[in-house]
């Protein structure tokens, strides 16, 4: 299987198939990224679309030293921040249940809502987007050690919620 970086390089040379493959890999993760952070499903899909449009027009600017995955989530985060500024919402988490087991999802959302915003973002990027510490540090522009300590704190807070609520 080709790496994301190989695909984007092929896409830069004009390969439609490479983009199709990249899209297939990231359509659900990116849509899930926005879906868990926004109330509206439509807006989540709009922003996913905008992320891929940004990839189409910005692929020429992608530099091989950056991972495609980090680059993609970097675009997604920028769009998300812009959307939040527009909505002027303090709580970034979706209000409506988004599939799966509703009561469990509700518990997770409520527990996450209690966390500090950066800790929540770090935890979500780790658990849902499966990014490693270095990628999260690069995206949020904070040191890797800070990512590690805040991730630990967030998980401990969630564990306490879990033990208290279970």
């Amino acid at each position, binding site marked *: 299987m080709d790496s994301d970086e190989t695909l984007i390089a092929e896409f830069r040379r004009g390969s*439609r198939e490479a983009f199709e493959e990249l*899209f297939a890999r990231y359509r659900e993760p990116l849509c899930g990224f926005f879906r868990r952070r926004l109330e509206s499903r439509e807006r989540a899909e709009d922003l996913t679309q905008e992320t891929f449009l940004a990839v189409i*027009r910005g*692929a020429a600017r992608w530099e091989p030293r950056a991972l495609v995955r980090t680059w993609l989530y970097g675009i997604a985060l920028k769009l998300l921040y812009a959307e939040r500024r527009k909505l002027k919402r303090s709580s970034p988490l979706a209000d409506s249940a988004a599939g*799966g087991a509703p009561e469990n999802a509700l518990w997770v959302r409520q527990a996450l809502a209690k966390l500090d915003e950066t800790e929540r973002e770090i*935890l979500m990027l780790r658990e849902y987007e499966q990014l490693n510490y270095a990628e999260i540090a690069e995206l949020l522009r904070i040191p890797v050690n800070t990512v590690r300590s805040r991730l630990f704190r967030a998980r401990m807070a969630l*564990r306490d919620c879990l033990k208290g609520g279970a």
Partner: protein
Amino acid sequence: MCDQEQLMAYLDGEASGAMAAHLEECADCRALAEDLRAVSARMIEWGVEPPSAGLDRRVRAALAPENKRSRRWWPWALSATGVVAVGLLAVAIRPGPRMQSVPLQRVVAEMAVPTAGAPLIARTAQIALTTSAFDQARRAIDDILAHHQGYFGDMNLTSPTDAGRTLTATIRVPASQLDATLAELRRLGRVESESQSGEDVTAQSVDLDARLANARHTEERLTDLLRQRTGNLADVLAVEKELDNTRGEIERMEAEQKALATRVAYATVSVTLTEGHAASAASTFSRLRNAAADGFRSLGLAIVAVALFLLAWGPSIVVFGGLVWLIWRGVRRLVIRRTP
């Protein structure tokens, strides 16, 4: 004291395997590891529904199948064809009267200018010419514009008495005709200066089209909402107000889109045409003649001004002057009679 963060990093695959042995020995760390796994497992229970087929269609449409021949033009070709496809799709799925509005690339295509897939460049040029055959050159510019389907943006002709005439004009010609137009303009006289520039507006147009597509999407949703909601009047009014705002925004963006399309479709050329020294040097007699003509013109204007003054103030002067004269005469007679 165990390094709990290190344990978490190990479980996340971010630390070395030395932690495995420690886990075997330390019951506290094993308990913590269980907790951490339980937290992760619990978080994963928050699943989200997969994206709709509409997203796939919209994104795939952004890769219109015409980039085989235009690979050299990548990424412009992808961007431009993508915008066309997304724009067309947005128009196609949207009900209501706004369906007639078209994406930028189509507006440009309708103007029969750049090839679809080419980068969108707003071209401008400047040329300054000197000619002794000024009138002939002036007429030739009209012919050049007619020939290349161009038009005058604005034009200014100055004719000072002590120098040659100067024509400054902004002309707009189809972008594809710019080179031919400049070639013909150069033949009108001696080229004093010439420059060309191009502003790449592809990214601007892609952004604009994406924003427009989103606004239309919002409008569609609000329209649906308005159709479905029949209850609270305040809610209905709020939705209507939002719909009005969105439509205003769409209209503003459509106007911006058309303006951008026009800038791309028509190149702007600033032409300065100056009458040459030969023409002005031979005009000593003309200057004398012009001075005489100006003198007569000034005299005529002065006569007219006096006539206007008399007509405007004459009646008042006659009446008040007569009164003053009568008073003066009466006073004078009185003085004479009393004089011994």
